[in-house]
């Protein structure tokens, strides 16, 4: 099971809140962007896929149905990175699993960051470290909720390049909630908008 065989993320007839019967398949290595007005239910859709909220519908990773495994194993595989990350320990290092030097460097950190006090992190640093923390748990699919909202242009570019590389290398399906049209053009293979109770292909 630990063997990294690339698998697609398959969402079938998922309903949560206003959204009804969402069907979506994200292939290995594919980045699907999702946009919509605030309050349209983007974050709730991600939470439903990660099985954090009560909802209807099915989600599978390849052949494996979510219900066939423990909920925490599912979330470790299908990793949600929320717009606002939470930190419970004193130092950054207490929150990570298997950290890779190259990931830290790709986003402008060094190993020393693991000893930093969480209370002194800026919102931008928190956001980048939250993504590194999530990747350090070696997920098989990623759900990103506005991951560059607190980043300047330079760091946004670094972040995009890093995620694109990761998606390629590890053949992860990625669902990326984004606002910025230019960013969606740069990273997304497909783009959906939430319109009322369903997803609509943008353009």
């Amino acid at each position, binding site marked *: 099971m630990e063997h990294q065989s690339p698998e697609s993320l398959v969402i079938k007839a998922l309903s949560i809140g206003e959204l009804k019967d969402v069907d979506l398949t994200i292939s290995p290595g594919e980045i699907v962007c999702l946009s919509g007005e605030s309050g349209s239910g983007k974050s709730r859709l991600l939470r439903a896929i*990660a*099985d*954090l*909220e*009560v909802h209807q519908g099915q989600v599978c990773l390849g052949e494996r149905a979510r219900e066939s495994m*423990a*909920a*925490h*194993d599912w*979330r*470790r*595989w299908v*990793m*949600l*990175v*929320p717009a*606002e*990350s*939470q*930190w*419970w320990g004193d130092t950054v290092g207490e*929150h990570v699993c298997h950290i890779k030097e190259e990931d830290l460097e790709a986003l402008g950190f060094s190993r020393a960051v693991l000893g930093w006090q969480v209370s002194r992190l800026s919102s931008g640093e928190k956001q980048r470290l939250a993504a590194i*923390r*999530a990747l350090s*748990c070696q*997920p098989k699919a990623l759900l990103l909720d506005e991951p560059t909202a607190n980043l300047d242009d330079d760091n946004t570019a670094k972040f995009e390049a890093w995620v694109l590389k990761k998606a390629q290398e590890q053949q992860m399906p990625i669902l990326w909630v984004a606002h910025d049209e230019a960013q969606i053009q740069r990273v997304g293979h497909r783009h959906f908008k939430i319109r009322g109770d369903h997803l609509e292909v943008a353009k």
Partner: protein
Amino acid sequence: MSVIDLSWWQLSIAAFMVIALAVVSMIAKLNVGKPILIAALRTVIQLTLIGLVLEALFSVGSFHWVALMAGVMLLVAGREVMARQKHRLKGGWAFGIGTVSMFISGFTVTVLTLTVVIGPDPWYTPQYAIPLLGMLLGNTMTGVALSLDRLTEAVWRQRSVIENRLMLGQSWQEAIGDFRREAMRSGMMPMINAMAAAGIVSLPGMMTGQILGGSPPGVAVKYQILVMFTITVGSGFGAMAAVSAGSRRLFDERERLRTDRLTAAKP
């Protein structure tokens, strides 16, 4: 040693001192004059009634009546545990979890103490069973209420932290572990403090009462030690049981945090 019985006119002198306190606090505009008088009146009425009940119970001494009394005490304690929580579990769970955990720990410790340690004949002799259970339930109630309140309050405030831990693939036990341990600890602290301070800072009420009632201090001390040990064990296990059951109820079968199972705070 004979006991000096208190007559009602002697008690009324003490009551007069309470009235004096109420009057002075009214003059000082402390706004507690009326509460003092009402609380004092409640003490008189409630204790007189319970005195009558206990006298009747002691004279009958049958198991059924002792069990009924114990059951009523448990239900009242369960209600009190529920009332002391700001965010409580909906649908009777707050009452159920509090009552069941007090029943498990409180009754087990009481019955064990009666049968194995003190050993009156029969073991449910109300002179021993009811005071022991009363002391135990009263303190277990505090421990259970405190720990459940701490747990639900922490979960309510820190739900995004718990959810973020879930997102990172932690099991529900891991995600709530810190809060669970903290809640259990807070339920045990009062008794740990009471044991540490006993006899130095404060003379425990039960022992004082027993000495005033004519028992030799040596016997009173032994009973006090016994009671404090049983209370510590009862409230400790009670808090652990309540927090375990309560935190389980805060997650569903897919390990989702269900804050919708808690009531919002009432003003």
